């Protein structure tokens, strides 16, 4: 089947790479043409993109950085990502050539522009400005932005603000939209700004620490809050692995706490969870399951896994971060 339709895979949609462009030294823009069957997105949603990296199917989640009307008119969607040279996927993405077929998931997530008459406050951190660009683009296109003003607070490290020219262009098209480019070092915390917007509907997208600050204030002033915050992947440092640490393990909707000293298999067994297994030494693959999220360590080699969805063998895996698996 894949001979006729490259990258045809059960349960995925196909998309063809239209263009790959460098926006800056480490920002990459990818334009994709999804197949017709792909259900279009709502601005702010994300997709999982799967490409083959050295024979291995590798998946990462990306925000769709364009409005639904852009997709309708051009048949294309736009993704923007920071290239992480150590990462598994983004370096490969930068060398992908136009016309290649890749796989994408249906659009997911409910971080979208709220249907409200209140003013809207957007708070973005770092490269997580992308869903807001999509929302603004669609809102302006569909004349929704006239209802109430939209203000965006955009935090990043000095000189790491991206897509500023696009923000300016959006601001020109809609006089109801304003934004402020801020750095914590110079302008202080996000908290200092929030009090001015107590009557707005808040949207936050950024690192966890920022989300927590905003969340705290939102509770105080009872501002409605929508958020999308990816607990950024903890950086794993090999020395710390020998110290006993406890992580949370989510499987089939249940929560368990596991440590990094024993194999996941033995800890699941101790917790009387229904696991199948055989050899207990990594040969038979009976104990294999899908890891949805998190990093594990192979006890045989000490190798660390990828952080994305992957098959792992429970009997030779130890937790290195919080995990989610499917038994």
């Amino acid at each position, binding site marked *: 089947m894949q001979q006729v339709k490259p990258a045809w*895979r*059960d349960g995925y949609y196909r998309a063809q790479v239209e263009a790959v462009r460098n926006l800056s030294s480490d920002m990459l823009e990818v334009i994709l043409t999804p197949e017709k069957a792909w259900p279009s997105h709502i601005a702010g949603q994300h997709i999982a993109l799967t490409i083959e990296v050295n*024979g*291995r199917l590798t998946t990462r989640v990306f925000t769709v950085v364009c409005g639904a009307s852009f997709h309708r008119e051009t048949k294309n969607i736009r993704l923007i990502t920071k290239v992480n040279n150590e990462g598994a996927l983004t370096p490969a993405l930068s060398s992908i050539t136009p016309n290649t077929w890749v796989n994408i998931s249906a659009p997911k997530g409910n971080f979208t522009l709220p249907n409200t008459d209140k003013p809207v406050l957007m708070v973005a951190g770092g490269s997580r400005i992308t869903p807001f660009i999509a929302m603004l683009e669609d809102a302006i296109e569909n004349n929704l932005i006239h209802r109430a003003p939209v203000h965006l607070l955009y935090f990043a490290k000095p000189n790491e603000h991206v897509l500023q020219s696009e923000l300016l262009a959006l601001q020109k098209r809609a006089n109801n939209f304003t934004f402020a480019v801020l750095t914590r070092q110079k302008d202080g915390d996000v908290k200092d700004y929030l009090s001015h917007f107590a009557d707005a509907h808040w949207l936050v997208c950024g690192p966890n620490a920022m989300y927590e600050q905003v969340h705290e204030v939102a509770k105080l002033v009872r501002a409605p809050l929508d958020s999308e915050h990816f607990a950024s992947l903890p950086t794993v440092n090999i020395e710390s692995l020998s110290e006993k640490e406890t992580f949370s393990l989510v499987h089939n909707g249940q929560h368990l706490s596991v440590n990094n000293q024993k194999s996941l298999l033995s800890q699941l067994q101790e917790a009387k969870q229904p696991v199948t297994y055989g050899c207990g*030494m990594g*040969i038979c*693959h009976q104990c*294999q399951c899908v890891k949805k999220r998190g990093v594990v360590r192979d006890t045989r080699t000490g190798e660390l896994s990828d952080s994305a*969805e992957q098959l792992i063998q429970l009997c030779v895996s130890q937790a290195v971060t919080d995990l989610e698996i499917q038994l």
Partner: protein
Amino acid sequence: MLEAQLDAIKSEVKDKIGAEDAAYIRRIILIQRICEWSGRILLMLGFLQPLLWVAGVLSLAAAKILDNMEIGHNVMHGQYDWMNDSHINSKRYEWDIACDGASWNRVHNYEHHTYTNIIGKDRDFGYGLLRLSNDFRWRVKNLWQFATYILLSVMFQWGVSYHEMAAERVFFGKKKKNRKNQVTHSELKKHFFSKGARQLVKDYVLFPLLAGPLFLWVLSGNLIANLLRNLWTSTIIFCGHFTGDVETFKAEDCKNETRGQWYYRQALGSSNIKGGNLFHILTGHLSFQVEHHLFPDIPARRYREMAPKVQAVFKQHGMHYNTGSFWKQYTSVLKRIVRYSFP
């Protein structure tokens, strides 16, 4: 020492595994599909020219062998799980033989590969039908075990399929620690019959019916293709495990064994067959049975480059590296079967 050396061979190869191996298995799957469909079509053209029918049988047999050996066996060992491709994955792959994939996974992948040649634990040794070493008491039925062997070969896919059920009954009541029944007996039966029936219907009802008036041509073609595949796989597997100097082990010897000792047992419990490129592919690289038992989840095509290194390590430790030509290995299997027919 042995452990470290073999681990080093493994990790060196592991670092190289990548796009090439993914492309290889996809190519083999493509070839298998082409063989299968051209075989099925040629079978129906037999009335034009009987030679076309013969070509069809051979092509279909080749497809079935590839599916069984280089694709099914190896994929189900998890050799390609790293690809993250749910179609080429040990949990999902279902092969074109009577044996339910999951059952094979339990018996072969777990028992046979963990407890290789430990009498009483590895139920593959002799399949409970043949007496292949002095570890078993001689019984009268062993007198005609050569005939049993031939029958087993002819029916091999059914033997493999029945294996887990037969074994469960044998061990019934004697539940060993560490052997937890993951599947109930009724489920076992259900899987056995449903998978078996599907195979029978496919080869002996569905495709022959599709051929309409050529019903018998296609039916007999499928029968012969299955037979050829059974004989081939059985022969290769016997050559890999039951040549003259393969050793057996006792359960006591293997308690708390280290990884190195496990390697050692794997090494002495299996034997290789020499041959050419095509031969290796058709055996699913089980002609490198020694390497396969040492590294069951390394993509099988890599065994070729590992073999000389493994052999060198064995030599250094004064261990016997069991290899030989097909005929040498096969005669030694036959001798073993005959030898243990008698007390």
